[in-house]
């Protein structure tokens, strides 16, 4: 529970600050108690130098500045208040960045996703320390570490802005700087409640050999949250439908609900494609239809069953030349043999498609089953 005092006389800038603050707190489901302090005597007694201003828990004071700085200072104040409330129920969208083109593409995608799902962006840079061996002593290059941290901060500052005259219409961006192994740190971050991750891939060709590309593919099987992989050229506005490719829709029913939730949230039609590679496949279409009609009656969806003996060829046929859909894959493994095979299917799709991919691992399912809210 945040105890908030808002200071100011009833000017439009005060009223706007109050409305924006309430909107932000309620949008994030953060519990709060708001007290309005409008008497000049009380404002002076509390040592507030300029109004509007916000004080949280009788401790943190955030003051808004006039003359062209109002917008930015209001944004900063609201960001700090939300941070104190740990962003409540807002989706935390982790965007790993190495400042490459691929990560900028992922950021653009994440920015629009954040607007749609009311999320906060965690722009994350994991710095892997470079050590130098001097006179048998291992020296860590602190200057390089600081330079990376400053670069991230200035990038975050440049993103935490609104178009002139707009008031907090752009998603809030938090900079997260970590030192360590990218994969380990990102895996750990993905365990945070209510997160999704958006990563860029370097695309076709020798992507496996490129560090960032291989990292993004490694992450596909190990993250504990939904993972969006964004190849070069894929964009959020070009997505016209969501295509969920699955080999075992019975098993993936939890994922299915999650994907239906996304489709419903983004207002996109959902195409389910069930790959039937097993003669004993007992997938029942009616089960999925019943599920959607019960939980998402407004959802526009189609279900296709494709008999295939070659998943690579089938995926390529469906999405190889397309760039207008979000392709959803799960890292479902039936047995040890298929574990190897399935991993390569996910990797293949990540490298050979122009569409954004959403990878749902079994860990995501465990978290959904355990009743934690991953996506809202």
């Amino acid at each position, binding site marked *: 529970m945040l105890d908030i005092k808002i200071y100011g006389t009833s000017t*439009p*800038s005060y*009223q*706007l600050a109050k*409305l924006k603050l309430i909107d932000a707190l309620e949008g994030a489901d953060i519990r709060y108690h708001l007290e309005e302090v409008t008497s000049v005597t009380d404002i002076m007694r509390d040592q507030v130098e300029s109004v509007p201003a916000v004080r949280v828990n009788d401790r943190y004071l955030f003051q808004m500045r*006039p*003359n*062209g*700085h*109002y*917008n930015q200072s209001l944004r900063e104040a609201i960001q700090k208040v939300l941070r104190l409330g740990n962003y409540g129920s807002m989706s935390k969208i982790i965007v790993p960045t190495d400042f490459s083109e691929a990560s900028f593409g992922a950021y653009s995608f994440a920015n629009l996703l954040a607007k749609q799902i009311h999320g906060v962006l965690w722009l994350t840079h994991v710095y892997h320390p470079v050590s130098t061996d001097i006179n048998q002593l291992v020296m860590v290059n602190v200057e390089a570490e600081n330079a990376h941290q400053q670069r991230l901060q200035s990038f975050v500052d440049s993103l935490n802005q609104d178009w*002139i*005259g707009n*008031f907090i219409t752009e998603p809030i961006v938090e900079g997260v700087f970590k030192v360590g192994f990218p994969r380990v740190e990102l895996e750990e971050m993905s365990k945070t409640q209510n997160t999704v991750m958006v990563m860029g891939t370097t695309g076709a060709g020798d992507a496996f050999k490129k560090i960032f590309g291989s990292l993004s593919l490694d992450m596909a099987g190990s993250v504990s949250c939904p993972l969006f992989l964004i190849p070069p050229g894929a964009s959020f506005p070009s997505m016209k439908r969501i295509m969920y490719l699955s080999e075992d829709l019975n098993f993936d029913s939890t994922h299915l609900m999650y994907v239906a939730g996304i489709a419903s949230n983004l207002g996109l039609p959902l195409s389910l494609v069930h790959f039937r590679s097993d003669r004993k496949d007992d997938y029942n279409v009616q089960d999925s239809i019943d599920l959607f009609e019960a939980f998402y009656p407004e959802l526009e969806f189609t279900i296709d069953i494709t008999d295939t003996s070659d998943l690579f060829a089938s995926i390529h046929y469906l999405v190889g030349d397309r760039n207008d859909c979000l392709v959803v894959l799960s890292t479902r493994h039936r047995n040890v043999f298929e574990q190897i095979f399935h991993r390569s299917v996910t990797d293949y799709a990540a490298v050979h498609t122009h569409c954004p991919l959403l990878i749902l691992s079994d860990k995501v399912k465990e978290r959904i089953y355990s009743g934690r809210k991953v996506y809202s």
Partner: protein
Amino acid sequence: MNILHPVSNIMTANPICIGANETLAVADKLFRENRIHHLPVLAEGKLVGMVSKSDFLFFRRGFTDTDYEKFEEDVRLNNYTARHIMTSKLAKLSPDDKINVALEVFKENLFHAIPVVENDRIVGILTTFDIINRLALDAEAKAVYEG
């Protein structure tokens, strides 16, 4: 109209201007009260930019229905200055430039007003309306019926 005459013949002399640090609430008042579409922006007496009515209306984001939008509009107009939305890279004319030079500039660009300056000080403004107005008054312009 002789297009080889200087622009000073047809420009609007001593146009209404706004200070670079004046709020946009002042710009709003000037646009409404004077029924003009362009405001040259001055800093220390020198021309530093221009605010067109279309720039201004774009900045205002259209209509305000709710209290929320009215507060936003009020804060917008009182917290931003002409400097924030002005166009600073301007085409300029000198009073002695010929009208055909102005015609070429208008033909090649999307804007509708060119400030006329002398030693960095604004002495007038020439708009497409000035030219149309002059053509309409031109005794030489005739309607010729054919066929």
